């Protein structure tokens, strides 16, 4: 019989995970983990459920940043961000991923930890907004960037869990665009999250661009970002620049789309993101 420990506090969860060692894993919204048998993956001997920990359910707008507990669902996040245009990319990602029932269940922490899920919407949105992740573990907590977390998430020490995500408050404008094969209720084959700080003349002072679902893991696209600096955000110009930079990408093969297709359509999505951001000005 699988065992499920329903933790009542972060300290309880950390202790339970540390105690279980290799045989334990955290469980948040469960939408990815419950499909493990379909992927022919084994469950660990025991899960530690985080869903009943109050602290992990909080969304708090603080002076310098937005704090999002690891078990906040996509639906709750979308509702909390609706009146906050400064986090537009994240709001769109949370409000459009998967389908309404999944958005009621799937959490931000789960989205970040599901290493095999290339089409996670929140991950590129958080990268473009320069979010940090707070990890809690026995006796300490630490903060890492989302990009750093993605490189370590399959190898976290025993007793370590995502406590919250911190998104800095900035004057950047941002957007999140995704291409699905069906109009809705589908996982995207390409995701672009783009945030830019514009000067008074409309030229880009700084930019952060992240792409998801194109490669096996979401990533920041720094080569392309550099080409944006000092230029106005012009959809045709950025589409051309994205085409030039796309040769460094390794498109992910999948039943829903081949790798070359993802790379081919990516520049058009970048252009669409820029058009949306211009519409916010």
């Amino acid at each position: 019989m699988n065992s499920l420990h329903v933790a009542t506090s972060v300290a309880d969860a950390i202790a339970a995970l540390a105690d279980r060692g290799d045989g334990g894993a955290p469980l948040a919204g469960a939408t990815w983990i419950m499909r493990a048998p379909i992927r022919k993956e084994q469950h660990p001997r025991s899960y530690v459920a985080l869903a009943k920990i109050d602290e992990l359910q909080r969304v708090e707008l603080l002076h310098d940043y937005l704090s999002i507990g690891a078990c906040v669902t996509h639906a709750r996040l979308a509702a909390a961000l609706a009146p906050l245009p400064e986090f537009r990319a994240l709001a769109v990602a949370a409000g459009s991923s998967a389908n309404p029932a999944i958005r009621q269940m799937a959490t931000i922490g789960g989205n970040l930890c599901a290493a095999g899920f290339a089409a996670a919407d929140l991950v590129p949105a958080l990268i473009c907004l320069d979010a940090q992740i707070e990890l809690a573990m026995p006796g300490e907590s630490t903060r890492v960037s989302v990009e750093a977390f993605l490189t370590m998430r399959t190898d976290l020490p025993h007793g370590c869990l995502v406590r919250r995500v911190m998104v800095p408050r900035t004057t950047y404008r941002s957007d999140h665009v995704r291409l699905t094969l069906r109009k809705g209720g589908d996982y995207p084959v390409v995701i672009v999250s783009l945030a830019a700080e514009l000067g008074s003349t409309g030229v880009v002072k700084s930019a952060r661009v992240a792409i998801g679902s194109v490669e096996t893991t979401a990533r920041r696209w720094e080569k392309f970002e550099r080409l944006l600096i000092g230029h106005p955000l012009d959809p045709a110009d950025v589409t051309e620049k994205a085409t030039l930079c796309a040769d460094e990408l390794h498109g992910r093969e999948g039943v829903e789309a081949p790798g070359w297709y993802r790379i081919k359509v990516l520049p058009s999505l970048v252009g669409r993101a820029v058009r949306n951001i211009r519409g916010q000005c």
Partner: protein
Amino acid sequence: MPLHLTVNDEDRVSVRDPLTPLVDVLRDEFFLTGAKIVCREGFCGACTVWVDGRPVVSCLLPVGLAVDCKIHTVESLSTNGDLSVLQKAFEDHDAVQCGMCFPGMLMTLTSFLDREPRATREEIKAALVGNVCRCTGYERIVDAAFSLASAG
């Protein structure tokens, strides 16, 4: 360890493994067979039930996480054998074909129309993106829901 659940306002006890999908407990242990098992992947919505008032796919919810929650299935929609207004609208619009998707359609749309009683056709369609009808009878389903939304 027995798991104590509240299903359709009745106390129930499950003895299944806490990782068992809720839909299997509802159907196999409690014989509430309204929620259907189709994809088990969260894509089709046939297994939709309400957990604390929110529509969720019960194929992806471990029963151990449903303890202390209020669960409602499609069996709770009618009262004393009288169909709910949406069930009646589905019947009036001759929307039912094989019926496999209907429990999920009803749970999703009943909750949606509670929140958005004046929804447009487009909004109704958007609310249904997680509910797949293999008989592809979408237009009449949307007609039925829209008849309530536009009824005043």
